[in-house]
């Protein structure tokens, strides 16, 4: 009786569970399998098991190590430093600013976030191109112009990711700051603590859990950016803005080595999974 009731009650879960198992868990399991084979895109009847060869190859492959390095630079610059700090600064400034300015700035920043990925990519491609807006401004200020997408491609795509992703941090931090009781900040103000000290000793410790979860989510989001970089630079010039997702794509499709590409994907997935576990621990929700 009880077991039957349990089954009836769990029944509505079936469609979702089936979809997730077939199309999410399935590919992940398949990923873990083909990463250990020499599967290629064409001209091969059977893939054979090659053990850790793909992984050994990756760690000896300069192009792979380059992609790891660029992914690290991209993530630290755009997510940890850029989105996170700018998002917090915007949220903090908004608490003091006048309402029209707050609404205007919030609206613009959020619009950048809502735009489709590819459109965002084009907008920033136009901004950073040699004939683009940034150089026009530099000319106007009599500063030296640069061919940004050629000389500093990883910096340009990092800025693009900041432009696109800051809204998320801004919203998270605005919500977090709103929850700090006004008495605490006022008391500190009366005691003579300046803005920076209040930020450092009161605000930051009080919102540390929001900071943790925000950093996690930003990092995970940034690890999987593909379209933005693809549109702006295709990972180039050469491979100077080729982060891991673009490297994975190139190996699997342009070099038609699905097995090798998948091994890279598996590594990316494992890094993501580790971050997810940390995120769950930080969250410690009472589910």
């Amino acid at each position, binding site marked *: 009786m009880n077991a039957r009731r349990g089954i009836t009650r*769990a*029944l*509505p*879960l079936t*469609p*979702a*569970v089936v*979809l*997730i198992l077939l*199309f999410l868990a399935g*590919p*992940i399991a398949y*990923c873990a399998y083909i990463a250990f084979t020499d599967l290629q895109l064409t001209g091969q009847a059977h893939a054979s098991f090659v053990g850790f060869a793909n992984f050994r190859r990756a760690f000896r492959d300069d192009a792979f190590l380059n992609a790891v390095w660029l992914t690290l630079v991209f993530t630290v610059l755009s997510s940890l430093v850029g989105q996170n700090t700018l998002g917090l600064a915007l949220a903090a*400034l908004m608490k*003091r*600013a006048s309402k029209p*300015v707050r609404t205007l*700035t*919030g609206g*613009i*920043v959020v619009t950048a976030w*809502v*735009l489709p*990925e*590819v*459109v965002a990519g*084009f*907008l920033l491609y*136009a*901004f950073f191109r040699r004939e*683009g*807006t940034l150089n*026009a401004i530099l000319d106007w200020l009599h500063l030296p112009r640069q061919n940004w997408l050629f000389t500093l491609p990883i910096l340009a795509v990092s800025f693009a990711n900041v432009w696109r992703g800051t809204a*998320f941090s801004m*919203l*998270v931090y605005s*919500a977090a700051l709103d929850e700090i009781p006004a008495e605490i900040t006022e008391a500190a103000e009366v005691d003579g603590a300046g803005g920076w000290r209040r930020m450092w000793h009161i605000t930051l410790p009080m919102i540390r*859990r*929001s900071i943790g979860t*925000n950093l*996690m*989510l930003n990092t995970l989001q940034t*690890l*999987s950016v593909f*379209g933005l970089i*693809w*549109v702006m630079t295709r990972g180039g010039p050469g491979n100077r803005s080729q982060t891991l*997702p673009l490297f*994975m794509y190139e190996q699997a499709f342009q070099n038609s080595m*699905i097995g090798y*590409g998948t091994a890279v*994907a*598996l590594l990316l997935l494992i890094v993501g*999974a580790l*971050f*997810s*576990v940390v995120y*769950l621990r930080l*969250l410690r929700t009472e*589910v």
Partner: protein
Amino acid sequence: MARARTSRRLAADAALLLVAAAFALPLAWVVLSSVDPHADLRVRIPDGVTLGNFDAILTPDITYTPLLNSLILCGGATALTVACAALAAYPLSRFRSRLNRPFLLTILFATSLPITAIMVPVYALFVRVNLIDTVQGTILFFAASQLPFAIWLMKNFMDGVPKELEEAAWTDGASSAQSLVRIVLPLMGPGLAVVTVFSFVMMWGNFFVPFMLLLTPDQMPASVSINDFFGNRGMVAYGQLAAFSVIYSTPVILLYVLVARRLGGGFALGGAVKG
């Protein structure tokens, strides 16, 4: 004190306006170029305003078919996501079970996995099971990838509907299915709207999934077909590219505004980042 406050407000306003201007420049480019007959890559006030760029792209080939494809793809996947998530959230929200917690933790874990990483194996898998280059296959994958977050959000919204209202219906002989459709879902209308809009917006903007899983050009959604402005058309018509971007982006911005107004700024994030 009051004067200090005013000057601090002015400083904050100035700083924010500076950031707003920097963020607005790329946006200004797309808006101004879309009506500029001689658009290039710089932001500038057009010499004359024209609708020629829009005229040039409002053809079945360039605009209508890709947008319709986007609508079918994202609409279908959103409907599937929302229906499955609503069903799944119901037992998780209503009945106590030892399995709820592990299930929800797994869902939350899946929510933050980098889906980009599995696109290569998904492609390989889709080739094997003959789902490659099919709209239904892409819809199924889209729905599955969005489901963990949708279930999580939906469950949180459903928890906000008091159980007492349903118990009354149960004593009147309503089944769980009836009370879900007639009582719970109508009462969580705003929550349902958030899940729907959020899923739709995420898929509408997604480039990598259809880029990998669809091959035939006339099945491509706008997120992929926009790339055709570059490549084999020779010279890039930036004005037309900008006009297309405007048309393609407008629906999601409108949807966002619609939902954000009703639920306040940090709307869909509540469940995921409450720390």
